[in-house]
């Protein structure tokens, strides 16, 4: 039995197969509409995340299956002190696959050790969010036609932004990818990303503080939100929140085919005036997210070959 806990659980070849399947789902929705008939996904969300939970549930429903679960720890047995290990043993009796979001890092790994059904990490603290990473990769591949030969700028909270860490770790596996890391000094990427991922793989990168100077160089601009829930100190959060705001004037500095991605939700880091710009890809990303999660469900349930 296979789980998805980290985006690197899939090799480059497996990732290509998964994204091919997601693309086929996008093009031939009807072909997949009953493939999971009678199957259930349990969405175990110990912290709220409307978009991710609905995306998983929509993915299973699109495949002909159904969904059950909870959307906050307070509405689950966790509020009575039940451990993740016990909860997953119980859920293994009710569902065929589960997606777990948990504020504590490593909780889905703990679940996978006791589970009798595939576990998908739907985000664990500041650690990993593999389905978001695969969604980001599908967005880039679908709209740019490639995952190699790209200059990608990450902007905002690069310290706590798990989507940034996961996407960098995934993209360094492709040839000729360069990174420009735009952040205030306090929110630079952690040292392990610099040393163990970028430098260890001889990947060209630079760390800068100016968004304007970097924009003309980019094929992709990946914006992030400064996440209040990752700060123990409110004053620090408020000080850093408004450092970078992407607006129409800044977009004028960018290439005409640069894409703007964002894992959403945004607060104020992308002005709404950018939404109508054809380069704004963050809402398309949401749609790709459903196709990717459909492909993940099929792959982990071993149903991916049934329609090939």
């Amino acid at each position, binding site marked *: 039995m296979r789980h998805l806990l980290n985006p690197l659980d899939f090799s480059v070849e497996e990732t290509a197969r998964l994204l091919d399947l997601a693309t086929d789902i996008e093009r031939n929705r009807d072909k997949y509409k009953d493939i999971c008939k009678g199957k259930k996904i349990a969405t175990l969300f110990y912290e709220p995340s409307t978009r991710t939970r609905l995306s998983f549930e929509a993915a299973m429903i699109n495949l002909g299956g159904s969904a059950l679960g909870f959307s906050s720890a307070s509405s689950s047995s966790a509020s009575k002190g039940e451990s993740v*290990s016990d909860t997953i043993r119980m859920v293994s009796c009710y569902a065929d696959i589960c997606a777990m979001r*948990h*504020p*504590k890092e*490593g909780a889905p790994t*703990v679940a996978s050790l006791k589970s009798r059904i595939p576990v998908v990490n739907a985000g*664990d*603290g500041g650690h990993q969010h593999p389905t978001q990473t695969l969604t980001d990769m599908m967005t880039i591949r679908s709209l740019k036609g490639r995952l190699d030969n790209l200059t990608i700028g990450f902007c905002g909270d690069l310290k706590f932004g798990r989507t940034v860490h996961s996407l960098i770790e995934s993209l360094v596996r492709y040839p000729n990818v360069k990174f420009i890391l735009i952040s205030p000094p306090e929110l630079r990427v952690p040292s392990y990303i610099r040393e*163990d991922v970028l430098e260890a793989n001889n990947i060209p990168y630079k760390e800068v503080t100016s968004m304007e100077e970097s924009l003309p160089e980019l094929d992709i601009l990946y914006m992030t939100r400064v996440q209040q829930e990752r700060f123990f100190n409110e004053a620090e959060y408020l000080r850093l929140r408004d450092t970078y705001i992407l607006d129409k004037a800044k977009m004028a500095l960018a290439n005409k085919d640069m894409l703007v991605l964002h894992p959403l939700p945004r607060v104020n880091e992308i002005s709404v005036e950018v939404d109508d710009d054809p380069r704004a890809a963050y809402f398309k990303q949401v749609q790709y997210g459903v196709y990717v999660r459909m492909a993940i469900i099929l792959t982990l349930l071993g149903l991916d070959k049934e329609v090939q």
Partner: protein
Amino acid sequence: MLNVGSIKEGFVLDHIKAGKSMEIYHYLGLDKLDCQVAIIKNAKSNKMGHKDIIKIECPIDVINLDVLGYIDHNITVNIIHDSAIVDKQKLTLPKSMKNVLKCVNPRCITSIEQELDQIFILTDEKKKVYRCRYCEEKYNKL
């Protein structure tokens, strides 16, 4: 010259960096074992100047010495049987360690589910990097 009697069955851990013996005593959980332990601190050593030595009288399968490779691979492990050295164990970095190190990441699942085993995996042998099995946080050696 200080004399400590020889042991019949167990281990003699030699060439411990001076001052490190109490740390090893705790890492090995010797405080929890009902056996004779002799700790010799600051013994004279031609090779090291000063060194610590630990003698443990116990069955040889009682203690997992893997952790020593993590603490200091220069320690010499002499295995004693019938009062004689029968083997000298070469220390290597353990691939994983269970309930030896503790994850200090306040966001780790082990911070709230304390019945979980504390497992650390060797992820970079060259740099001696261990990461938490769950949250993958790097363990910073004290």
